[in-house]
């Protein structure tokens, strides 16, 4: 199976070949041909100037779930009573989607000893909070968390279910979607509603951020998505806002097979890259481990965290946990500063979603400048100290 190419319309221009992320198109004589690598992603159909390419329509099972489902749900992730920032962002986004669908916003909170957190969720925009408070949920174990969530979904049938694309969310939610037998779109950066069909339009980077794809889940419900932290605006907070609290109890049989023996907070190493507003990243241009002192100073001055390229990590100048990119973390902070980073594609895919990118590199042709909003050609050992000085001056500290 593959896309259908209309030989009447195909001019053999080859534009589809360049658009294909999977090398599934070849030129045979004067026509494009599709091979077995085709995943039916549709990038070529989009790229074809002649509209010669169509993605085949496929019959899918309709199970009527869409008609019955109602409500937008948000997974209120917490660890040790702390909710990551993304929960507020999801509730802000959830409210906007719920308004368009004219439904309520539900928040699902699992854990133990979570007094007061439901109130916070109401303040952040939840109309209903489903609270499962049980000692068996005190630590995060995928299987029992999944059992509880899947049961709630089966019972209440939300039409949309959003969770943060955090480590916890990306471990748990695929399991929940499988248990609920529905579709899941990972790490979305854009969500919208098609009001006619009540469909959630889920946009995410694919193929390492080089293409964007909009994905729908036409029939199964809920329509599930994990959402990248720091891309959705958080909603307004309204103190004292009230809502319905639904207590959820576990059955006697519910238990986790896995057991958390220890929770280690790596606070000594400031590496919460995914949640950071500011990331200052050093590359091989730093010349050695000492170079990271400058990176740390700038990160500290800006209230940010330290990132690194694989080049720097492989040189053992800094730990793995700092690596940004395809085989490290994906970040999208408000401000990303790259010092001595060449901008290899595997690095760019992990940071090109940042709101403001500053790059300092002494090679004017470094690819990092293609994605930088502020590209500074110069020696980082001169430019970065100048940045620090200016900050001090403006803050009246020097």
């Amino acid at each position, binding site marked *: 199976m593959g896309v259908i190419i209309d030989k009447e319309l195909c001019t053999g221009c080859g534009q589809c070949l360049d658009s294909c992320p999977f090398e599934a198109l070849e030129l045979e004589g004067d026509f494009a041909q599709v091979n077995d690598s085709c995943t039916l992603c549709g990038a070529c159909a989009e790229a074809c100037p002649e509209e010669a390419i169509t993605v085949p329509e496929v019959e899918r099972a309709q199970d009527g779930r869409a008609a019955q489902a109602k409500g937008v749900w948000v997974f209120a992730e917490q660890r040790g009573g702390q909710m990551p920032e993304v929960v507020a962002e999801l509730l802000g986004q959830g409210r906007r989607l719920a308004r368009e669908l004219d439904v309520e916003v539900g928040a699902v909170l699992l854990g133990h000893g979570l007094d007061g957190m439901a109130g916070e969720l109401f303040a952040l925009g939840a109309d209903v909070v489903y609270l499962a408070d049980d000692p068996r949920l005190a630590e995060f174990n995928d299987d029992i968390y999944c059992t509880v969530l899947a049961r709630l979904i089966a019972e209440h049938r939300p039409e949309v279910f959003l969770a943060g694309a955090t480590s916890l969310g990306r471990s748990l939610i695929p399991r929940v979607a499988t248990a609920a037998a529905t579709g899941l779109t990972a790490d979305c950066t854009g969500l919208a509603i098609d009001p006619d069909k009540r469909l959630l339009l889920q946009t995410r980077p694919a193929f390492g951020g080089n293409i964007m794809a909009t994905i729908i889940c036409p029939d199964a419900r809920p329509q599930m998505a994990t959402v990248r932290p720091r891309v959705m605006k958080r909603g307004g907070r309204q103190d004292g806002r009230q809502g319905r609290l639904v207590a959820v109890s576990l059955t006697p049989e519910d238990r986790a097979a896995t057991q958390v023996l220890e929770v280690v907070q790596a606070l000594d190493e400031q590496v919460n890259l995914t949640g950071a507003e500011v990331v200052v990243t050093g590359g091989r241009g730093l010349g050695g481990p000492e170079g990271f002192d400058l990176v740390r100073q700038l990160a500290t001055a800006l209230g940010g965290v330290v990132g690194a390229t694989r080049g720097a990590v492989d040189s053992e100048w800094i730990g793995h946990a700092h690596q940004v990119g395809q085989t490290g973390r994906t970040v999208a902070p408000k401000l990303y500063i790259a010092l001595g980073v060449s901008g290899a594609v595997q690095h760019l895919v992990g940071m090109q979603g940042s709101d403001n990118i500053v790059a300092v590199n002494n090679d004017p042709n470094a690819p990092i400048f293609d994605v*930088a909003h502020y590209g500074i050609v110069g020696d980082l050992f001169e430019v970065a100290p100048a940045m620090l000085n200016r900050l001090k001056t403006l803050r009246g500290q020097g």
Partner: protein
Amino acid sequence: MKIAVCIKQVPDTANVKLDPETHTLKREGVESIVNPFDLFALEAALRIREQAGGEIVAITMGPPQAEAVIKEAIGYGVDEGLLLSDRAFAGADTWATTAALAKAIEGLGGVDLVVCGKQAVDGDTAQVGPGIAQRLGLPHVAFVKGFREIENRRLVVERQMDDGFDVVEMPLPGLITVVREVGEPRPPSLKGKMRAKKYAIPMKDAAQLGLEAGQVGLAGSFTQVVKVFAPSHGGERHRLEGPPEQTGAQVIDALVDNQVIMLGS
């Protein structure tokens, strides 16, 4: 211990450059490779076999040419391979992918541990591992970065979290997905490479897995891609050149003016 490792063939992005105009990939002679994270999965499986004994089966679902990754896995030292290939698999989302992989693992019989990579670099979903675990009714721990204890009936692993890591005990059978920190992949052995050359790869199609056409590929998927487009790299671009004192100060001023940097904190 019987270990199944799921590995995927993906296009190699190492030699690819971004086209600065269109921000699409410039793809000249891009080759296919083993998904980089799956090399860590293979390495983890090899280390576990060293400690606990047993055998490793590498499984991949993909077009016929995906047999290359099975050969590579044999080269690294896995015992057996299995290729799942069928035209009907095309266009599978993670739901339809886990349908095939879970059936294949079930078909091996008596698998104690399934190891997956953290995510595949083409789709970046990280959904397949936990999905397989749920389909097989197995516990799972995702984003494993290290092992504390490896025994025949249980593992104690370190699970990477955003704010640190957890030490988690998992009874076997179970599934893990691994991140880079589990250890650098060893190079393939000469013996393994020799064996890979001769190794006849077992293959299964949808029917042999006991799956119908409607359960796999695009037809068996819940999600559907409706649009693909180039990312917009929004925002103006400025190039600052000149003496460093000047450019360094300029960029800070611009960021302060645009309220990216707040001075009052």
